[in-house]
């Protein structure tokens, strides 16, 4: 029953949504409205579940003094302090919540993302080699696109941004469209397998 009930729910609702999309009728619209109200009710439970799960995982780590348990203390403290400041004083301009966001989270997130520039430069120097004709084509395309994206490229020659745009509009687009078509077909096949009960890995291993 543990596997059969979720399977019945997925298959029944899956086919009902397919019917809703392809068979326009009053019953189909009523079904959709019913689902919207259910979806609104389910979301708050997911938030509570997420917070409980976070407390359980990190609480256990702290209790057992697992390696790097101190980081778990910081995580839980950050969660509590941010949530309390939001509930107590609101989230508008001038509140502690927005101060925390602008002065702690924003710089920390930006710092993490900006590290990419250092790694890209280092990787470009150490690993981007013209070892084969394909790698050479990639290298030349990268040069043109990089120069085409910045004002200095256009200042050198108007052909640089135009060629960069052509690379994005033609070869890049062709490759992306091919990939997208493949992904779309794959998604359709997987969805059909789920609807027909052939694909069951989402139910877990129990």
């Amino acid at each position, binding site marked *: 029953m543990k596997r059969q009930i979720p399977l019945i729910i997925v298959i029944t609702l899956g086919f009902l949504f397919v019917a809703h999309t392809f068979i326009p009728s009053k019953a189909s619209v009523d079904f959709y409205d019913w689902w*919207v109200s259910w979806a609104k009710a389910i979301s708050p439970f997911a938030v509570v579940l997420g917070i409980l799960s976070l407390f359980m995982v990190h609480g256990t780590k702290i209790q057992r003094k697992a390696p790097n348990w101190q980081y778990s203390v910081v995580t839980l403290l950050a969660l509590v302090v941010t949530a309390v400041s939001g509930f107590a004083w609101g989230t508008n301009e001038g509140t502690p919540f927005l101060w925390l966001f602008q002065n702690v989270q924003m710089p920390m997130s930006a710092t993490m993302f900006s590290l990419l*520039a*250092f790694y890209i*430069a280092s990787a470009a*120097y150490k690993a*981007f080699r013209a070892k084969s004709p394909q790698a050479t084509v990639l290298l030349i395309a990268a040069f043109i696109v990089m120069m085409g994206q910045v*004002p200095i490229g*256009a200042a050198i020659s108007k052909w640089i941004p135009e060629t960069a745009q052509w690379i994005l509009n033609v070869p890049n687009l062709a490759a*992306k469209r091919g990939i997208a078509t493949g992904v779309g077909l794959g998604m359709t096949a997987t969805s059909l397998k789920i609807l027909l009960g052939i694909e069951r890995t989402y139910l877990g291993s129990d």
Partner: protein
Amino acid sequence: MNIFQRMQNIDRRWIYLVVALCIIIPLLIPFNSKTYVTDPSSNLYQKIDSFAGKEDKAVLLSFSHDASTMAELFPMEVSILRHCFERNIKVFTICFSPPSAPLMAYALNVAKEDYPNSQSGVDYCNFGYKPYGLFLPIVLGMGDDVAEAVQTDADGRKIKNLEIMNGIRNYDDLNLIVDFAASAAVFSWITYARVRFGANVAAGVTAVMAADNYPYLQSGQLVGMLSGLKGAAEYEKLVDVFAAYEDADNPNGRKYSPEVIKDTWVPIMSKKISYDSSQGNIDTDVPLPYKFKMARIGMNAQSIAHIMIIVFIILGNIGYFTTRKKPDETI
């Protein structure tokens, strides 16, 4: 060990130091550089501008990113909001992830500082954060009735009672959605709002995500796109040259013209907007604060960083080919 072998084994901390200097110096000492506007940016500008002064047309800005990608996305958000305030275009904002909510409020606060007459609930409205579980019900629901789908704004006011909702019912009126993302979030808007209801969708994305969107631009499913800091810089220039332009004949901005944008550039070092073109130089009294030129200043650092990476690649390849083991000729 010769110089090429040394180059191959250079400590990567030297590379990090060069990267840091190449990015920090142009940000601290900005210089004038020309911004060339591409079609995806100008198409988005024209679409938004076509809503100017219309009671029954509005733009919805969807914030789908966190603070890590602010450097690229925040300037484009501020530019589009500035365009809307400047040209009296109704604008709504919404987000479906908690970290985006303060960013949305921050962008609105930064842009509206210079437009004290723009009022919340009248000229703009922040729908606020909605849980991601409600994404589909809200996106699909707005196809029928925006006020019914969203219910309340960020301040808890009933949407249907707000003055801004006069003439705005569904995607026929809320006719353009611009999604700012560092992910493939815009595809959901294309799938549900564009395909099902015919809403116009545009994207403001980080540069690494831009390549993924070109098929949708070509098919017309995206009406425009701002690509990374370059896209933001282009939009800043478009707003300066057209929406924020003021003279005796055009007191509320001027109409878009491909010839004018190609011929004109705005020196970013001056504190007031000035226009340089083949017709000569025009100095205005319209202020150009840092927040309205931050993408163009950032593009200076990006220019230097791109050149530095190209130099690194060339040096790396020279080192590789000169130190590569030659075939043993004795065999």
